[in-house]
């Protein structure tokens, strides 16, 4: 049992196979390309797809940022960052602007990404139609025939029942006017960031053995209706308790057992950057609630 693995763990043959899948995915934006996903030394559902995509594109000069729930400090982000530090020895960072490859679970950074960056998403269920039709043989046909009526009916039923679309994350998008795609379970708050993003977006689903992509500057439209246009979550009168940011995605932190709570930026790097620039939040908000 040798302790030496190839650069970024995967052997070069496997990387080549994954790169071919990535190239195909870029050529057909939003289309799910089957790939021979490997068994990785972390569990399925914990980022094996994202890790394989990252391993396949990583070069020795890349700077890697690893986030989960928007933060570099969450346990799984720490574990996956450690994996690449150990197996690839690449530089890592928590600063969004310094990273060339950003692997993420559930969030898109608040800061606008640039052309030289790649955003790699970890995807649990790549099929946007899966909860409407469990069979892969069926959903592949539906995509091939651009048969997306079922999805529109589902959204319409939401409106008929609740008066609005009751999907808050993994909100389906249409890529370049063709494929309906699951943006991975990011909150729909992040959907507008995907549209015409300068960075390349790659999606890896290890357990389901699928890779898909959005090339830079591609139109990505969240599904909606003319009389019920797509909208994102808002937190009226809420600012980050640490940095005072408004209009960002918030984590709600429970501060006591009497209903006290505070909000702070989900994107921890964005928050730190603001605090470093001298912004301070109103922490009395949550101390008052605590009293």
């Amino acid at each position, binding site marked *: 049992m040798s302790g030496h693995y190839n650069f970024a763990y995967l052997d070069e043959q496997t990387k080549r196979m994954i790169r071919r899948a990535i190239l195909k995915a870029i050529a057909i934006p939003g289309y799910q390309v089957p790939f*021979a996903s490997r068994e*990785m030394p972390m569990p399925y559902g914990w980022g094996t797809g994202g890790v394989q995509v990252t391993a396949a594109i990583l070069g020795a000069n890349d700077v890697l940022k690893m986030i989960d729930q928007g933060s570099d*400090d969450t346990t799984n982000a720490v*574990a996956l960052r450690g994996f690449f530090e150990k197996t690839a020895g690449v530089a890592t960072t928590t600063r969004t602007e310094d990273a060339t490859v950003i692997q993420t679970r*559930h969030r898109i950074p608040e800061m606008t990404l640039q052309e030289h960056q790649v955003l790699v998403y970890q995807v649990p269920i790549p099929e946007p139609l899966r909860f409407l039709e469990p069979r892969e043989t069926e959903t592949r046909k539906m995509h091939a025939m651009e048969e997306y009526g079922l999805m529109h009916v589902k959204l319409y039923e939401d409106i008929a029942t609740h008066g609005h679309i009751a999907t*808050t994350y993994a909100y389906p998008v249409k890529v370049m006017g063709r494929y309906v795609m699951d943006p991975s379970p990011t909150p729909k708050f992040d959907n507008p960031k995907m549209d015409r993003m300068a960075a390349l977006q790659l999606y890896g689903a290890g357990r389901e053995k699928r890779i898909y992509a959005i090339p830079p500057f591609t139109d990505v439209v969240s599904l909606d209706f003319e009389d019920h246009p797509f909208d994102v979550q808002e937190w009226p009168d809420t600012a980050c*308790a640490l940095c005072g940011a408004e209009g960002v995605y918030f984590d709600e932190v429970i501060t006591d057992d009497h209903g006290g709570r505070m909000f702070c930026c989900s994107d921890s790097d964005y928050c730190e950057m603001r605090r470093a620039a001298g912004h301070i939040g109103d922490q009395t908000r949550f101390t008052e609630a605590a009293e």
Partner: protein
Amino acid sequence: MYVAVKGGERAIENAHRLFADRRRGDRSVPSLTLEKIAQQLAFSVDRVMSEGSLYDRELAALAVKQSAGDLIEAIFLIRAYRTTLPRFGASRPIETGSMLVERRISATYKDMPGGQVLGPTFDYSHRLLDFMLAAEGEVPEPSRLENIPDQPTPGVATILDREGLIEPHAEFDEHAPVEDLTREPLDFPASRALRLQNLARGDEGFLLGMGYSSQRGYARGHAFAGEIRMGEVEVEFFAEELGFDIPLGRIKVTECQMVTQFKGSAKVPPQFTRGYGLTFGQNERKAMSMALVDRALRWEELGEEFMAPAQDEEFIMSHSDNIQATGFVEHLKLPHYVDFQAELDLVRRMRAEAAAHQNQDASYNEAAE
């Protein structure tokens, strides 16, 4: 202050150290050796080798030790190791007909060439706790035959085959490349070979449940254990450069041939049909369950009615792998607070809307009174 998930790195390190300590337990108790595990927990080792798809008793024993007896975790360790190994080819098909039989039973014939060989088994034992075992009592040597009869033990299916009562062996092209679901993405419909590969790696408990369901009417057909045999077989590899087969060594396997009566259909005349199961080591429960599920999955080929999950190729093959299943189930432990926050927001909004409706209804009622 806000510390919920900060400092993850040190916490993870400490958690792993604590686990290593708990695994070792009381230091005054001798540590398990791999040899002890391989010899005395042979069923655990066999299961880990089968579902880990790697025949190596020592590594499997190490995995069992490292996982403190959590067999799915042990299988995971073996799989993650296996994936890094180079592949230089596929062996020749093993000949279970020429197995050095350690155990061989048939439920369909009272006696047949080669006889019924009970061999080492739990069967027919009284499941009473053996307190002698706790007291580390002496274990007597097994009784031995003076002369081992040198007669062949042909498979029971072969006997039926001579009469034309059972469907012939599945045809396969010896020179076709062997499909490998760990190297190619799965595509439906899958070949029977690929289905069997999936079942061989599949979770024992899952297959047991699915096989059981097929016996209880969720799928049709009453199966007989035509034959179960367990013992060592030779593994051979055809070396292109040399032009002949090279023996690689011997492995122990359990094979099950289920025989199911079949009343015939538009496609196939009345006859007995086969379900096939094979595992590394000794694991009859798994081999039998696998054979039941294999048979149920063949409904389309035989022109049977589709009626139950055990027949559903996509359902079975997508959910049989315990490493995939446990990963995805347990990933719910990972933080999900971004999505939860989005749902929280939605539920609050919907509650507020529902409350507003109720108030409105109440005021209408008051006005009407």
